[in-house]
């Protein structure tokens, strides 16, 4: 029996070059990979326009071969709204935003895009802190977590973690919300499937779609990458369970 070998997994074609310097163990590049794979599998690259927020995903669309932009901190949903309406609803438009970008400074943009029922997909990368600026408290920081602005661990005086996929369920303009943790193989597959459904719902004009993806930030958590994913397993997953929270199905 002669054997040949066939390449079954490699860098997606849409990914240009390689990383631009994320820290070891960071899942931001995993999000790049997921997005590329999903767009390739759905054959949507030519129709997709992405918007990155400010944070460690600022350069997302510099190295992905689809049209894209970055923009003001927090404003990606409004930028996506502008693109979508400019082109009369034609493209697939999605954002990549950090948790600080999306939930803190961008909370009002998300809320209002959801209320307007914009046909866009928001992808929020939740690493429970502000990675770019050196690890400050984010709205997603979990109770007790030490950050540079909660040096003794987050306590109730500094509020509670925010759960956007669950929260947005209550808004009529929202068609789909979900959360996945692509740091495990199962989570990776879940993330892909959620992203696919989100894009489908968007194209079906069902409403706003929202996918949260958990991500490690080892240096700011002061952990090694392996410690970081253990911490995610132990602390983040209980706070931020994976799953679909709303799916209006098909179209509007």
């Amino acid at each position, binding site marked *: 029996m002669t054997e040949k070998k066939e390449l079954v997994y490699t860098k997606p074609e849409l990914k240009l070059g390689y990383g631009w310097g*994320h820290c070891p163990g960071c899942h931001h590049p995993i999000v790049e990979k997921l997005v590329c794979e999903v767009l390739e599998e759905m054959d949507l690259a030519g129709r997709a326009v992405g918007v990155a927020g400010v944070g460690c995903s600022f350069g997302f669309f510099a190295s992905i071969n689809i049209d894209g932009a970055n923009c003001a901190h927090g404003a990606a949903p409004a930028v996506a709204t502008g693109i979508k309406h400019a082109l009369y609803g034609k493209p697939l438009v999605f954002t990549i935003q950090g948790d600080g970008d999306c939930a803190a400074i961008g909370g009002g943009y998300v809320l209002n895009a959801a209320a307007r029922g914009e046909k866009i997909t928001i992808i929020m990368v939740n690493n429970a802190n502000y990675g*770019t600026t050196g690890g400050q408290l984010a709205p997603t920081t979990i109770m007790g977590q030490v950050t540079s602005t909660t040096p003794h661990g987050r306590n109730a005086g500094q509020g509670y973690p925010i759960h956007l996929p669950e929260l947005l369920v209550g808004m009529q303009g929202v068609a789909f919300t979900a959360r996945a943790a692509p740091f495990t193989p199962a989570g990776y597959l879940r993330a892909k499937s959620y992203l696919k459904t989100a894009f489908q719902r968007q194209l079906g004009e069902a409403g706003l779609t929202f996918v949260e993806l958990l991500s490690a930030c080892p240096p*700011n958590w002061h952990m090694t990458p392996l410690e970081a994913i253990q911490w995610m397993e132990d602390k983040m997953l209980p706070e931020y369970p994976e799953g679909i929270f709303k799916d209006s199905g098909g179209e509007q």
Partner: protein
Amino acid sequence: MNRTGAMRHDVIMAGVGGRGVLMAGLLLAQAGMTEYRNVLWFPSYASTMRGGPCECTVILSNNIIASPMLSLAQAVIIMETSQAGPFENRVQPGGIAIVESTGLSEKMGRDDITTLYIPAVERAVALGNAQVVNLLLLGAYIETTGVLSPEAIDRVLENRLAGRGREQLLALNKRALREGMKAARDPA
């Protein structure tokens, strides 16, 4: 007092983020506080993400220190091979370059300066911890320039590390510093 009697010492330390370049500079500056009237430490790096180029400037002087950035420095410490090229040019004629040489493939180009090759990564690994490359090179620097005594650095290290169950680390650091001094006296 500083050992040379010179009014001013300045140095640029260069490397990549997360490898103790800034810390080495800060140690030197902190130690200089007691021996010099003026002290300046200026770090410079592109982002908090690890691995990017990273440098700091340290100036110890008994005169006023004006500019925080230097066109050319009396000395440059190159802690990471990848930074050798750009930073060799930042040494004043007649100045000193101290270069981590474990990963270095060819010699540096300038002949109007003194270049010290210290295989700091190798020595650090030999000491049991690759993290002390910075202390080794700092040792080489103080030895070569006489800017400060090792004890001045020790005191700062002690303040930072003592009493927190980090005695081992402290000892390692001190050892690395002296290993660097030795290497400077007897370069590779």
